[in-house]
């Protein structure tokens, strides 16, 4: 057993951090948040040139041919930077869906463009209130060649060229690739909690689409794609939590009250220690999930849930405590705390909430016989 990332993998992470320190200061996130562009195109171009979009894509499709172990470390750094780009939608969701379910022709068609950043994809699943799974996608239908229905919210929907749409087909669901620049598609930007990662509404009226994966396999494929995305998103959330804590720490060291740095008060030290502990618990779950993801282990089904819940909680806590420990200035538009507060909430809302992932976790453990008292199959790591 060895739970360390390799020196080469750590080098990939360091390169990512250096690049983002130089090219993605928090002012970049703020500019997108305050402006009217859905993302920062220069950073997107730079990230494509760095080869990150195709990190885990085979070289035959223009990728770097590395593993998800490298990809999660890049995700962690993008999280630290609050990068205002549609990376998670295009890489964790669209690229992964095509890698998992695409025909050879679909891979040839989409993956080189995705890895070059020339095409941006997303997943269109939700239709208003409901769970983030195929059961909520029943108002959209696919007739074999066109899709009709309304999807909201869709992450980065205004920025993307195509979407993997979850639609009803016959008695089941299918995944359908839909060109969002084609006929029958109306897109509208929605007022979003975190405008640096904006949401959109897609109205599809007989929009042309081609099936991704088998007819009726959509529910299972969505489940698989979300499990994989949850691990990468978990690392992004951990990165956000770590940065929030770093900045909170620096502020508290420099802010004096009663003649001493506020960072010296035990009440605040303990809050920061709790954020650190929560983040480490998330990261440790993430280590196992990243290994399961890169190894094709069946334990991913459980590990993805654990990572997703722990990472959502860690980033949300870190961003809440960030404002609390900053005090009054933390509540101003001028300070960056709200960038983290918004991002933490928007990432917690994407891919299904912690409540949903807790429920999935227990269902999956039950299905594996965990703690049932009869013929339980042991998890390898138990």
């Amino acid at each position, binding site marked *: 057993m060895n739970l360390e990332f390799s020196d080469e993998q750590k080098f990939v992470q360091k390169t990512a951090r250096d690049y983002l320190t130089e090219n993605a200061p928090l002012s970049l996130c703020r500019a997108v948040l305050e402006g009217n562009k859905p993302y920062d195109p220069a950073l997107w171009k730079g990230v494509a040139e760095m080869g990150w979009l195709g990190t885990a894509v085979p070289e035959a499709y223009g990728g770097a041919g590395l593993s998800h172990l490298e990809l999660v470390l890049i995700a962690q750094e993008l999280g630290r930077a609050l990068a205002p780009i549609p990376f998670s939608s295009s890489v964790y969701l669209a690229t992964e869906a095509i890698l998992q379910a695409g025909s050879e022709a679909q891979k040839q068609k989409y993956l080189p463009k995705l890895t070059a950043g020339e095409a941006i994809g997303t997943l269109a699943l939700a239709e208003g209130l409901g769970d983030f799974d195929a059961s909520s996608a029943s108002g959209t239908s696919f007739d074999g060649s066109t899709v009709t229905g309304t999807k909201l919210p869709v992450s980065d929907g205004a920025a993307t060229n195509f979407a993997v749409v979850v639609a009803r087909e016959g008695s089941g669901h299918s995944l359908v690739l839909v060109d969002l620049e084609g006929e029958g598609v109306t897109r509208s930007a929605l007022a979003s909690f975190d405008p640096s990662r904006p949401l959109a509404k897609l109205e599809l009226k007989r929009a042309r689409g081609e099936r991704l994966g088998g007819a009726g396999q959509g529910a299972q494929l969505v489940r698989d794609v979300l499990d994989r995305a949850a691990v990468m998103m978990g690392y992004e959330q951990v990165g956000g939590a770590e940065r929030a804590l770093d900045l909170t*720490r620096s502020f508290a060291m420099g802010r004096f009250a009663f003649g001493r740095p506020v960072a010296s008060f035990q009440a605040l030290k303990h809050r920061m220690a709790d954020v650190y502990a929560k983040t480490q618990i998330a990261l440790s779950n993430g280590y196992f999930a990243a290994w399961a993801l890169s190894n094709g282990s069946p334990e991913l089904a459980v590990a993805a849930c654990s990572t997703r819940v722990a990472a959502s909680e860690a980033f949300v806590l870190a961003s809440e405590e960030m404002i609390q420990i900053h005090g009054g200035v933390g509540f101003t538009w001028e300070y960056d705390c709200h960038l983290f507060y918004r991002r933490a909430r928007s990432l917690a809302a994407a891919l299904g909430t912690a409540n949903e992932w807790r429920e999935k976790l227990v269902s999956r453990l039950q299905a594996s016989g965990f703690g049932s008292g009869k013929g339980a199959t042991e998890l390898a790591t138990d």
Partner: protein
Amino acid sequence: MNFDDTPQEAEFRAKARAFLSQHLTPLDPNESAPNLLGEREDKDAIDSAKRWQATKFDAGWAVLTWPKEHGGQGLGRMENVIFNQEEGRFKTPAPIYGIGHGMLGPTLMTHGTKQQKERYVKEMARGQVVWCQLFSEPAAGSDLAGLRSSAVRDGSDWIINGQKIWSTGAQYCDWGMIVVRTDPSLPKHDGLTYFIVDMHAKGVEVRPIKQINGGSGFNEVFFSDVRVPDAQRVGGVGEGWKVSITTLMNERVSIGAGTSGGRIRDIFRLANECRRNGKPAIEDGGVRQQLADAFITSKGLQYTSYRILSALSRGGTPGPEGSISKAVGAPFGQQLSAFALDLQGAMGGLLDPTLTPQEALWQETYLGSPGLRIAGGTDEVLRNIIAERVLGLPSEMRMDKGMPFRDVPTGPTKK
């Protein structure tokens, strides 16, 4: 990164399992853990622990990480963890060697003289004598360096007076490691010295403490003019704090490596057995959310200990990151057992082992859990450690800094 055994690790695991199955009864993974709490202090339990330790030692399966010259096997931490995992699959006698083998042995090997190592370490490894730690005092808990027990030089001996408290297992121990004040005119950390003390010596009196859970794992130990030869001093005069830190760092590693939150499967089993709204409790939405959180924290602690272990086995040193294991694990133990009692409904108010699930294990765990939030560093001390040593936040203000110990203000307790 790899969670699986390497071929060498798998071979070692198979050998360990073969050895263990010759001597022990395996636990059924489909059955909840038996309640072994409270058996620790019985004479029979101590005798059977000693017999098992001798069996392991004689077969070459004891103190695996210690050097061969000191009775160990010179193996890595990873092999040690694998052996412990495998041993955990069997019903074993009470664990009475954690302090000696986890903390005191490594301290002696680091700071002891050649004669001390030869005299004590191998004997400690075989476990027919048991060692305890004599650190805390009634007026020195979290502020351990504020301890007041004294040692005064008398020819080639030292005379120890004072009171220690919270000494685990002192009632059945043969030797102890004690830190005492040898110079009260120095600031508190500078005037301490560390000794090996014979627990059967004249003037040593052990009084078991009756704890809130009815058990007596801990003791008060009184020292009245106890004579200790200078040859039993560990480290230099005035270096007691430095030596104590070695002991405490090893405590942190022991706790870190030992945390597994291993009872999570039993909680799921309990949620299947107990009922809520006329159905198994595990079908209740609120219960399911709590089960998920318990699983996630438990696995997070387990993988954190594996991360620390991976760093250590690649040549790193024990770092303060290990503090999160106890900072999170100790309150988690209390939350988990409270959850288990809630699942039991009104039966959670019983302490009768014949009527309650797992022979009142969760009741007893809940009663014992406050102690774990205090022992070996309180929740608050551990948060300070994380804040100061991991996050680099300012240290606590110390009113006694640089002050001769005898001038440090005290409460009503006499110096």
